């Protein structure tokens, strides 16, 4: 429905879209630094490929499935906007041009798929991954985005418009969705060779910190941009994002210092991401004091959650379920306690006298998205494994994916590779002693 375009809103959402785009290379570095040196490039490529692949799918039909008018009782959008029909220079969504909205939402779709890659680090076939991303975005991301992000005055996505659960920036669509799907993926592909036996240390922690820094920076666009306007709500979301990330860092480090004896760098950035995840749904419904609590709880809970994989034996390699799944649930449920009418306008959580109503609605949203994502992702991963092949051969996994899949090596540190090449015939300098014919070269044992 056409309305007036607001210049400030448009400018802010344009910038936010670019900020969210930057999170994808940020995520690539965050993940890339955490894997072993033989798989860095493959890890980067799994994220970067999402940016390219999801963009194409989005233009073809993804935007329409997510934001087209209801089909099947609101489970998904229709194909009315396929090929970006109805997304022209004069089309308006809210107070911003529809192409701006479509670009902003595209970045969400791309990074959510990229998030999943962390759960199957070091062992996925690249072709299987690409096929998976296309199918998963189509059958899991776009429907769930329609449930939560599509709003049309009480007739839109069922989770926001009918259930009235609160999820401003995608605690369900992005975080819980990727976390639960990551768990399903890890279960289908199985653990890496040597899981729970070999040390699989992060090969480059400064790279992880750089990636986390870009994520934190981009997250301001992710959360405050989700206000879809440049105003008070964006401001509150921006401030809450910073607050929750900070207390989550402190919460995680406190646990580490007490439990393991050291406050680690990896713990600090993991805490930051946990806090950012948890504040994603809640940034537009709590005040900064609420954000303090949400960050702290997320930091503490996630610092334990990432250890569950060793107890139960699933190899969620880079803790997608432990950070995004658990952090997403923490953020969604704490809205039920901490939402305040001063920010939301009406909805109130348990601690602000709203009773159990909002908490119940948040729980239903979590259960609905969680179970749908898990079941569908498990089926899709099984199908890809069966018909395309999702896991590399054991020897290839041991050798490392960078050289094998991409034909490249991440680091050339000189000594090991300097001067190695094919010796051309006729390059021996004169005067070099030659081996006498009666002394044949001995067989060199390998």
């Amino acid at each position: 429905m056409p309305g007036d375009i607001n210049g400030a809103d448009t400018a802010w959402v344009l910038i936010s879209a670019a900020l969210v785009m930057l999170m994808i290379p940020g995520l690539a570095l965050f993940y890339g630094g955490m894997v072993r040196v033989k798989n860095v490039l493959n890890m980067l490529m799994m994220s970067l490929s999402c940016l390219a692949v999801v963009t194409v799918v989005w233009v073809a039909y993804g935007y329409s499935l997510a934001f087209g008018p209801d089909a099947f009782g609101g489970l998904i959008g229709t194909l009315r906007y396929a090929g970006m029909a109805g997304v022209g220079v004069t089309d308006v969504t809210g107070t911003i041009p529809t192409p701006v909205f479509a670009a902003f939402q595209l970045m969400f779709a791309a990074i959510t798929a990229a998030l999943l890659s962390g759960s199957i680090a070091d062992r996925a076939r690249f072709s299987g991954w690409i096929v998976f991303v296309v199918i998963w975005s189509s059958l899991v991301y776009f429907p769930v985005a329609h449930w939560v992000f599509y709003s049309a005055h009480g007739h839109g996505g069922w989770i926001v418009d009918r259930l009235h659960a609160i999820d401003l920036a995608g605690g369900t669509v992005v975080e819980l969705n990727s976390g639960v799907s990551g768990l399903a993926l890890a279960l289908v592909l199985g653990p890496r060779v040597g899981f729970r036996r070999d040390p699989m240390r992060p090969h480059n922690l400064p790279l992880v910190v750089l990636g986390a820094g870009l994520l934190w920076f981009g997250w301001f666009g992710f959360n405050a941009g989700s206000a879809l306007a440049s105003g008070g709500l964006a401001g509150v979301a921006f401030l809450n994002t910073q607050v929750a990330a900070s207390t989550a860092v402190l919460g995680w480090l406190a646990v580490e210092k007490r439990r393991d004896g050291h406050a680690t760098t990896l713990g600090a950035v993991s805490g930051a991401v946990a806090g950012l995840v948890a504040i994603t749904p809640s940034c537009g419904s709590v005040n900064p004091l609420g954000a303090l609590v949400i960050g702290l709880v997320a930091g503490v809970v996630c610092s334990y959650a990432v250890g569950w994989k060793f107890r139960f034996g699933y190899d969620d390699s880079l803790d997608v379920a432990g950070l995004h799944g658990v952090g997403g649930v923490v953020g969604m449920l704490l809205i039920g306690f901490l939402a305040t009418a001063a920010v939301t306008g009406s909805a109130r959580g348990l601690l602000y006298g709203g009773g159990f109503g909002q908490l119940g609605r948040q729980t239903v949203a979590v259960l609905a998205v969680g179970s749908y994502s898990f079941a569908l992702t498990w089926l899709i991963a099984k199908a890809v494994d069966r018909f395309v092949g999702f896991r590399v051969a054991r020897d290839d996994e041991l050798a490392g994916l960078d050289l094998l899949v991409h034909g490249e090596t991440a680091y050339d540190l000189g000594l090991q590779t300097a001067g190695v090449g094919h010796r051309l015939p006729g390059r021996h300098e004169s005067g070099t002693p030659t081996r006498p014919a009666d002394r044949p070269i001995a067989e060199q044992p390998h």
Partner: protein
Amino acid sequence: MKLVTAVIKPFKLDDVKQALEAFGVHGLTVTEASGYGRQRGHVEVYRGAEYEIDLVPKLRVEVLCDDADAADIVDAIVTAARTGTIGDGKVWVVPVEAVVRVRTGERGLAAL
């Protein structure tokens, strides 16, 4: 001639170098190495998960010397590299058949 090889803790390199210079050794070769002996590595914790890292970073120092100096050079290295804690390393000596200085072609003791 002898080749004295020492595997030492990396932070002890300066002490070992000074001791060798004081003794009159004119050249040595240092390479980065990793391994374990009785020390058996250490534990690192990432996201709450403990990893036992069994290969510990070390430096390998190699010195070529005259037969008569070998025992003293070993003593110099051992004294300088010792901290008294586990993981101080090892020193060993092997005989060397031939040594040539690449620049001049000098051989034997003249090449040291």
